[in-house]
């Protein structure tokens, strides 16, 4: 049966954008080439089928959906030598984790209770994009903060035994990172266009 999840939908779009060279600037800021981005996506997909590895606080972590994104974040942080970039990542991480934790804990069980009450699947990406835009439109902070924020929130709220990134490419971790970057790029560019036109 044909089925396309929102994650697969976004992923196909990203693959197409990379292939057409339209995400060149975003990838450059994340110290990646299109080829490496495609290799990473393939590696996440293939290794997500490996059994989970023990993590901290009794949690486990998936190789493709958890270890590879963490490795990529470490690489990005080590490559960016500016302390400001590190601070941005930490700030977005804290903000995303806090937003998830607060909405999980203090909002009703079912999402969509108000007009702007986002589904828990999409909330991390939107918060990460918003914060990283406010902190200087940093794509690196959006990507790293979204992933680390979800992980941090789940570490503190989920019961032991949870597998981080267990859904591989379709997990909320990867989905949040990719959507956060795309949102930061799209919203930032559109906003700047509008501001430039107004001048």
């Amino acid at each position, binding site marked *: 049966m044909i089925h396309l999840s929102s994650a697969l939908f976004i992923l196909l779009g990203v693959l197409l954008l990379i292939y057409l060279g339209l995400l060149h600037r975003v990838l450059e800021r994340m110290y990646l080439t299109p080829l490496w981005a495609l290799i990473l996506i393939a590696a996440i997909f293939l290794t997500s089928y490996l059994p989970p590895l023990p993590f901290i606080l009794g949690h486990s972590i998936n190789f493709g959906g958890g270890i590879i994104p963490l490795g990529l974040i470490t690489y990005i942080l080590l490559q960016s030598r500016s302390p400001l970039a590190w601070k941005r990542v930490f700030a977005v991480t804290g*903000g995303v984790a806090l937003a998830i934790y607060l909405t*999980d804990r203090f909002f009703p069980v*079912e999402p969509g209770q*108000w007009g702007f009450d986002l589904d828990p699947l999409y909330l991390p990406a939107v918060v990460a994009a918003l914060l990283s835009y406010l902190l200087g439109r940093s794509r690196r902070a959006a990507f790293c903060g979204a992933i680390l924020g979800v992980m941090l929130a789940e570490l503190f709220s*989920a019961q032991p035994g*949870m597998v981080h990134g267990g859904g591989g490419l379709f997990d909320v971790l990867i989905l949040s990172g990719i959507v956060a970057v795309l949102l930061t*790029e799209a919203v930032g560019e559109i906003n700047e266009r509008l501001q430039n036109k107004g001048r």
Partner: protein
Amino acid sequence: MKSFPCRSGFQVILLTLFFFSISSMLPVLGGELSPEEVGQGLVYSIVTGTGERLATTRYRPLVGDEYVTADNRLYRIHDVTAYTATASLQEVLDFSHEKTTGILSAQKRKGSIGIFHTHNAESYIPTDGTHSIHGKGGIHAVGHAFANRLEELGVESIFSEELHLPHDRGAYRRSRETVLEIIGKEPDAIFDLHRNAAPYAVYHHEHKEEELTHLQFVVGLLNPHAQVNRAFSYDLKNITNSLFPELVKGIFFTQGGNFNQDLYPTLLLVEVGAQSNPREAAERSIQLFAEGVYHYFYGWEGVTEDPKAAAPLVRTVGRTVLWILLFTLAGGILFLVINSRDIEDFRSRLAALGRGLKKKLQHLIKRRGV
């Protein structure tokens, strides 16, 4: 904006950790409705302009949400005040021309059905003594009843009892992995079984002098193939109700959620009764529903099957795929536009893209020796 609002990012992390430690000691303010709140009527009602009550639910309806009743009247909500949503009749859906039984019977096999619970703690007060049990709540027994009946009918059940605690909205994020695990086994459909929070009478139902509970489907419209979910929920409701009248009391289409339905077109969230109904009644109802599911996918023995029965669902899937392709194309154009300085730059980028694609295509054709 170049300045950073906090002196150190580490301070933010430390503050976050401190906040988590303190707030974990506080009671959950949101979350599940308590029996007292349900008793006080703090649940949401969907009513018509004449005051007819269509549904009572724990989901807060939004303007634009839709509700389809057991007799296929489609209502759209146009006003929400406090705990009451007013809806107006849009149309009476006509399914008389569609045959949707035994859609997979042409494959001469009985497949498998996935079952899981996003909110594991949900329980039934008259039987379980409480509305919520931390761990495997009463809803797991309902899942077992469903799985056992399917097995009796010769259908493999993929029943995951994976826990997604605590009982909060984040459980939908955590249950995503469970859904993907079930999808890996290629089931024909997946059901996320819940129970609602509503007064006893709302979900109380009787069939052949036996106490049952109504079922209600919930479809989150915040997903790319909501239209397939919609078509599936219509068909399944109609088949089930044709066997057991009014067993499925309605379908709630909400714009506020996703409920992981983006992962599979035939994933449905099913509310089996409410916390105030006895669990045994819910178990009986879900067993009847299993027969509806069986009838929908595999047909009955001896019934002449129509291989074209799946055509309406396949058509809807085709439309969804087309929409996804159009959205991807629109996304590509958007990125091209925002990365261009002006219209001339856009044109030259588009031309370069065309040339690049042509070159790649020629290269591919050459390699394949066509």
